[in-house]
């Protein structure tokens, strides 16, 4: 499957990476994706997809509160201090919810 430049830009936008068209073509993403196409010709009819090597079923934990207040630890690496004194992460202003 070949992706147009616009599609690749859409993907970059979806994962929020600013990237120029030139850079995007330099990165040879088309050639990588083109190479991935070789899997298309493999007959996988009735093959169940394998999503993890783990064979057990999902473990479940008991409903116990194990984590104490660790606000200071959580906030310690925050890149913006503006909300720290009041215990918040400061993020760019967003109006639309």
């Amino acid at each position, binding site marked *: 499957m070949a992706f147009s430049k616009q599609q690749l830009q859409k993907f970059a936008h979806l*994962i*929020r990476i600013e990237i120029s068209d030139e850079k995007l073509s330099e990165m040879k993403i088309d050639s990588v*994706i083109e*190479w991935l196409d070789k899997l*298309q010709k493999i007959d996988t009819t009735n093959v169940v*997809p394998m999503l993890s090597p*783990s064979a057990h079923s999902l473990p479940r934990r008991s409903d116990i509160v194990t984590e104490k207040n660790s606000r200071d*630890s959580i906030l310690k*690496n925050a890149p913006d201090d503006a909300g720290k004194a009041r215990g918040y992460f400061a993020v760019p202003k967003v109006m639309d919810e």
Partner: protein
Amino acid sequence: MTHLINLTITKALQKLKSGEITATELTQAYLDRIEKFGADLNCYITVTPERALADAAASDARYAAGNPLPLDGIPIGMKDLFATRGIRTTAASKMLENFIPEYESTVSQKFIDSGAVLLGKTNLDEFAMGTTSKTSFFGAPINPWQIEKNLTPGGSSGGTTSAVASGLAIGGTGTDTGGSIRFPAAITGLVGMKPTYGLCSRWGCVAFASSLDTPGPIARTVDDAALLLSAMAGHDEKDSTSAAANFYVKDELPIIELKKLRIGLIKEFDSVEISNDMKRLFDARISDLKSAGAEIVTVSIPNILDALAAYYIIAPAEASSNLARYDGMRYGLRVEGSDLIDTYKKTRAAGFGEEVKRRMVVGTAVLSSESYEVYFMQAARVRRLIADAFDRAFEQCDLIVCPSSAGTALPLDSDLTPLEYYALDLFTVAQNLAGIPACSVPCGLAENKLPLGMQVVGQKFDDMRVLQLAKHIEKFAGLDNKPTKILGK
């Protein structure tokens, strides 16, 4: 104090127990050597001398009290992908350049609990994405073999292989998502073990591709690797994919009888072009095994040559999702933009290097609504075919052997295309897709005097026999991989 540097873990533990050396002496010898060669080799992102000496002093106290821990006083390097409480953990990315976690990964905690000494955090490819370690934001580590040639120590665990091969750590940790332990170990003359998926916890280890990421040890001998793995392995209820399994070796691996072993060669790998050296050394080791009584059979893994493409769909897909959390909001780099979206985009444009971006765009493409079935699910089906084929192969043999790479270490400045770099994982990725254990062990020196390795591959949770066979191969190869020999000083 070169004699200290050349000790294996097994030997060092004997001498520590007997009181012939102290943990502080051993640690100081390594710190001195890091001081001397660390900058040249660039194998550490962060060195932790105070922590190391404090760890060593605590070890000495336990030896004095007569109750040492299994790895007491053993100075190791920790791949900078494992979160270490209070110590910068970067994943070799600008994104996490100044990130200091307030928690300790399960693997590094287990080393603390085993008495190991932390020398520092080793270099790697950014977010473990690479085969050369040169995608590191902190620059590439150097392969100590023929240091003047500026060769790659492989990737992504290249900082650890550089450090262990050069005697800047006695052993260390890696993570193997598509070959990131085995390939670098092979081209630095070391033993690199990718255990069964789920044997070592991923908790606290920066995620690259969750269904493939496998922590494991890197060491100079198979016995050392087994001792490190004994410390790392074990069930962890904080990791839902962790297996209810363990691995434990007391002092050294018990010898396995070669006469009773049936060893498989993968037919499909015959068509893969490899260097004459690799072919010669691999064949030599096979005939050694044969002479020692092992039975050699041929098995077929029909889609194994498609494993690489399946891997380069699954791994980027998972990575594109796992790396979404690096958004500049709660920790790590933030580059302020004109609004929220602009801030995200500028932050992630500045924080991630090119290879990480490439894989994330590819990963997003293969998960997009138009290609999810065609790429991602098809890759997951091919993955099943490969895993099932391994299961069938292990009905015909006990263990499988194959090369670890096509050739020896490349110069760091080689300018390969992305696909050529990806092809370096050709012999290693299928084992990650299947989740089965595989160990790269040195098989000899090429004509250019650089080391090569071969893999022993086993069924899930057959990690012990994988290492046991590797130990035979190690002995047949007889590679001299003493750090002072490798580095020439």
